[in-house]
């Protein structure tokens, strides 16, 4: 009727010229930002309709309108329920009836309130389900696994931390889901060789297998390594693997590209060499917290012709081993020596001069290296994109200048806890592609250096200024003006930062993570500006911002609808602010410690109102003040309480804090 009327009136509608295909094409370009799509759908009814037809991916918030949401989007194939802590069997059966066979992927990784009954009703209708994430479903038992086997088309299955699922369940899945390509059994403590072995026997399509912390032994490895398409094998923390068993392996996997053997205490170079024997395709090898890196170990790795990435985090390493890595005929792209003891200038310098193609280098906490190494790195590895050198305290200021002079392609720099100064920052600001800069605990930098970064690094996404105490509003303003792409900034414990910094930061509309704990000069006004300007804000830490009160919370509650996590400890927020916050439906994670004037009743009211909570950190005194049935009720909604007994702390200034830190080391 309406249409007819408008036709009769010869009313010109410009949007009528756009058919659905064009609108779909437009929508395809709006994938990046969810808010854009929302705006699009609010233009007119036809846009609304088109948007609802177009959407394939949905990540709903926990709400009572779940059914309406699903009704609105009939073609959703990808349902991400990771924001919903409480998915029950009823929800699943509803999803099953509404989504039918269009559903291809569902993520239930944040809920443990459904059982095999819900799963079976889900799988009854959703026959084309390909991806299923059941991580953290700690209550699921083997009967759920026996239901999963009905999903014959399943290709990706995450069962991380499904601690009750045993070999029997895994056996059911192995027999039923023959098309599995990815399987994560991380932390499935009840699974042993038998279940994993059966997976390897039955699911020949497996590409990626995560067996981290699964109590397997060597017995299941032969069948795993014979999987024809296995690319990615994660064996973190498999203490059951040992050299003796691994030496019996006749051949490693031919197709394996990534192998993670981290934290396998009983595997040394002997086991590694037999495990990687014949693994000609291996590109990445991760042996973090593994055996001492000696010549024997590097020799065993040398035989891998396609190796590009080696991560030896936390290992003991000898200088000769480092040099041996340098002698490899292959050219590494990525090397991580993070927290390795024994990394010396000598060894590292030789290594980097031979691996000139290195893109990423992580020498975090290699405390022995000096400027010599850095100079060698910068002169030979000019195409570095990532350099992490947190806590390399012996590296002098001049070294940072050479980094900026030689490595122009740097995108990620971690100078945390180093001697970098303004000249260094000025030098590295030449790296126009810089997106991540971490200069926390760098007491030598001031606004001057930061202004250089702000002026020349427009692509900066992440900036960490944690406890870089000399920073003031000027520096922040320069960053805010120059780096509009900023998504994460940490200005914690910067005593001189005031509301004006926040007002300038509010221009960075993409800002989603803001940490500003211990900034005593910030008040509710600054926070309000952030709330208005940064709609994407998801994580906020305002601990010890004593001047922030209820008015800031009210603004926050009104504008920051995407807020997921907040730390309110030591703030001047009362029950009003808390209740206001409770209206943020996304809010999942709240830390409330040492808030004066907050009674148990206020807290209870706020917790009841905040339905989406998954984790609440409270002072342990509230444990006795809140009635037990209330706590149980909140817990039954999917919220976990964490009781902390921290004493009330007085803020310390940056230099004395650093002295304390060094004293503990």
């Amino acid at each position, binding site marked *: 009727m309406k249409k007819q009327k408008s036709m009769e009136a010869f009313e010109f509608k410009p949007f009528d010229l756009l058919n659905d295909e064009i609108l779909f094409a437009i929508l395809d370009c709006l994938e990046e930002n969810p808010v854009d799509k929302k705006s699009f759908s609010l233009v007119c009814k036809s846009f609304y309709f088109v948007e609802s037809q177009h959407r394939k991916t949905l990540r709903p918030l926990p709400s009572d309108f779940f059914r309406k949401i699903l009704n609105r989007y009939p073609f959703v194939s990808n349902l991400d329920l990771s924001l919903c802590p409480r998915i029950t069997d009823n929800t699943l059966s509803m999803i099953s009836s509404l989504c039918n066979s269009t559903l291809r992927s569902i993520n239930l990784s944040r809920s443990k309130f459904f059982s095999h009954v819900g799963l*079976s009703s889900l799988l009854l209708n959703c026959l084309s389900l390909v991806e299923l994430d059941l991580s953290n479903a700690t209550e699921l038992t083997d009967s759920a696994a026996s*239901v999963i*086997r009905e999903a014959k088309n399943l290709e990706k299955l995450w069962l991380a931390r499904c601690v009750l699922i045993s070999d*029997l*369940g895994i*056996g*059911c899945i192995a*027999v039923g889901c023959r098309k599995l390509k990815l399987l994560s059994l991380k932390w499935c403590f009840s699974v042993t060789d038998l279940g994993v072995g*059966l997976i390897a026997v*039955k699911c020949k399509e497996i590409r990626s297998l995560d067996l981290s912390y699964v109590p397997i032994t060597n017995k299941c490895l032969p069948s795993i390594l014979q999987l024809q398409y296995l690319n990615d094998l994660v064996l973190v923390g498999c203490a059951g693997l040992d050299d003796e068993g691994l030496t019996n392996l006749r051949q490693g996997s031919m197709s394996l590209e990534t192998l993670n053997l981290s934290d396998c205490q009983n595997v040394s170079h002997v086991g590694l060499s037999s495990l990687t024997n014949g693994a000609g395709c291996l590109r990445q090898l991760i042996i973090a917290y593994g055996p001492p890196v000696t010549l024997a170990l590097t020799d065993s790795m040398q035989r891998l012709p396609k190796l590009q990435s080696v991560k030896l985090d936390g290992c003991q390493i000898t200088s000769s081993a480092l040099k041996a890595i340098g002698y490899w005929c292959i050219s590494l792209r990525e090397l991580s020596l993070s927290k390795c003891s024994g990394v010396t200038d000598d060894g590292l310098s030789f290594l980097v001069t031979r691996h000139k193609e290195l893109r990423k280098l992580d020498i975090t906490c290699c405390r022995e290296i000096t400027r010599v190494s850095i100079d060698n790195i910068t002169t030979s590895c000019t195409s570095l994109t990532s350099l992490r050198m947190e806590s390399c305290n012996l590296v002098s200021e001049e070294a940072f200048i050479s980094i900026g002079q030689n490595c122009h392609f740097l995108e990620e720099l971690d100078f945390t806890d180093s001697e970098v100064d303004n000249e260094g920052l000025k030098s590295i600001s030449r790296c126009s592609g810089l997106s991540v800069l971490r200069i926390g605990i760098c007491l030598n930098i001031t606004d001057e250096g930061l202004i250089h970064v702000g002026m020349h690094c427009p692509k900066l996404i992440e900036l960490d200024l944690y406890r870089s105490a000399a920073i003031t509003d000027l520096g922040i303003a320069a960053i805010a003006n120059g780096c509009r792409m900023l998504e994460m900034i940490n200005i914690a414990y910067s005593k001189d930062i005031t509301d004006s910094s926040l007002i300038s930061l509010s221009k960075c509309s993409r800002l989603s993570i803001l940490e500003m704990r211990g900034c005593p000069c910030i008040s509710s006004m600054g926070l309000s500006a952030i709330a208005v300007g940064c709609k994407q804000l998801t994580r906020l830490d305002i601990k010890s911002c004593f001047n922030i009160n209820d008015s800031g919370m009210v603004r926050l509650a009104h504008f920051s609808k995407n807020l997921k996590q907040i730390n309110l400890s030591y703030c001047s927020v009362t029950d009003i602010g808390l209740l206001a916050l409770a209206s943020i439906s996304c809010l999942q994670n709240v830390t409330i410690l040492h808030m004066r004037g907050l009674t148990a009743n206020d807290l209870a009211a706020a917790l009841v109102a905040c339905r989406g909570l998954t984790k609440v950190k409270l002072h342990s005194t509230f444990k006795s003040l809140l009635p037990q049935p209330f706590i149980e009720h909140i817990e039954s909604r999917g919220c976990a309480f964490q009781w902390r007994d921290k004493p009330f702390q007085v803020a310390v200034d940056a230099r004395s804090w650093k002295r304390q830190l060094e004293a503990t080391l």
Partner: protein
Amino acid sequence: MDSEDKLSSETSRNSSMRNDSSKRFILDHQRFSHFDSQQPRLKCDDPASLDYEIGTEPPFSRFNQSSEPSSSRPCNPKAQNEILDQLDVRANEMFVDPTRIHNWDPRAMLSNLSFLEQKIHQLQSLVHLIVGQEGRISGRSDELVAQQQQLVSADLTSIIVQLISTAGSLLPSVKSTLSTGNPFVSQLGNINGVGCPPSIHTNDELEQENRETKGFNHSDVEQKANYVLEQNYAGKSNPSISTIEEHEFKDEEDAGEGENLPPGSYEVLQLEKEEILAPHTHFCLICGKGFKRDANLRMHMRGHGDEYKTPAALAKPTKESTMEPVLIKRYSCPYVGCKRNKDHKKFQPLKTILCVKNHYKRTHCDKSYICSRCNSKRFSVIADLKTHEKHCGRDKWLCSCGTTFSRKDKLFGHVALFQGHTPALPLDETKGSTSDGGESNEATARVRSTGFNFSSSTSSGSGIQNVLDPKSSVDDPSNYFSPMNFDTCNFNGFHEFPRPPFEVPESSLSFLLSGSSNYIPKTGGSLGSESLS
């Protein structure tokens, strides 16, 4: 031992036996006392007094020995035929050569015969009575009929016993020319002469005398000629049998697997199917009760008189420690085609009789014992069932096909091997999940049935199992005995003897009559051998 002592002891044994039989007779009558008024009371004391009169005379010992095998084979028709033959031809043969017979007292014989006459008259009058009753009371209950039949049969038993004993008094004590100790034994054993009933050896002395005893009937001797006798028989195999029984090997079937005796270095014996399946191998000579072990029989014998209580009688029959080298004995399974059968190319002998029994039951018989817990596992040897029941229920690892495993790795190996098989969850866990019920149950049923077929086909290899009803083969004694060699037997005059067309209480007559060719004893009679022991 001088002959006087021997004689007296034998006599006393005989008298006690007579007492026993008469006692039984009384018992029968008492049981049906309401019937007494209609029939002439038997003078039950008579036999005893007669016996005592002839106290110095030994015929009963003869009777005892000669009838022993027949009583030990309660269901053997041959034995009975023998006896019947005897009855029939006694008049002619009894006095064939009186001079040959030592210790023969015609007066005793005469008194025996007069006793028999008396008995037969009594029986006659009883039957008359019954016939008369038949006319008057048409609507008699079956019970009454049965009781009368029992009475008649009891009388008959008594007569037959007397007859045999009388005939036995004629037996010559001269050494037999036969190599075998006892014609009956050799007949009872099959063609190969293996199956000598161990019960013969309950008493060494008896056995000794047995061997001294000649075949007391010429027709018997002729019949015996029809049988192929094993050369080494000579009463030596028996001790080994009894030893085995006492040690009760549980599962020695494969014991001889690896021993690799060169063929010919041992003697191969083969029992017949019936012999293997017989529940009892030791039978009481007096009451006919069967026992599985000789020791039990000896204990049982104590109830028959003080002479069985002597240490000698109770002692384990010692192996005849003759210095002759004993040939190793190995056993063959009668099932043709079986690897344990001596005709098989790769014949592997079985070590003991128990091995034979277990092997035959396990391999060639139906598995009629079903586990009461799982209701799926079946066994043919009861000991296997008991072993299984100890562990049944502990097989907690279950496949969707219904197969259970005691070990998880076995289950997973099984699942890995077979397409479509899934580890099944324990019942308490799966209940509530309704979706996977139907299909898997169906699969379970399907595979279970195929599994059963599989097992039966492997175990039998031919149709014999399917033919044999497990129940009847185990419980029904009529199936134990094939009509072996009946046709070849000479039933001389047998048919003149009125065969009882009625049920005979096993207690009184079974050891004499039960095996007659087309007479099928009813099973499960409440008057089983237990009632008398």
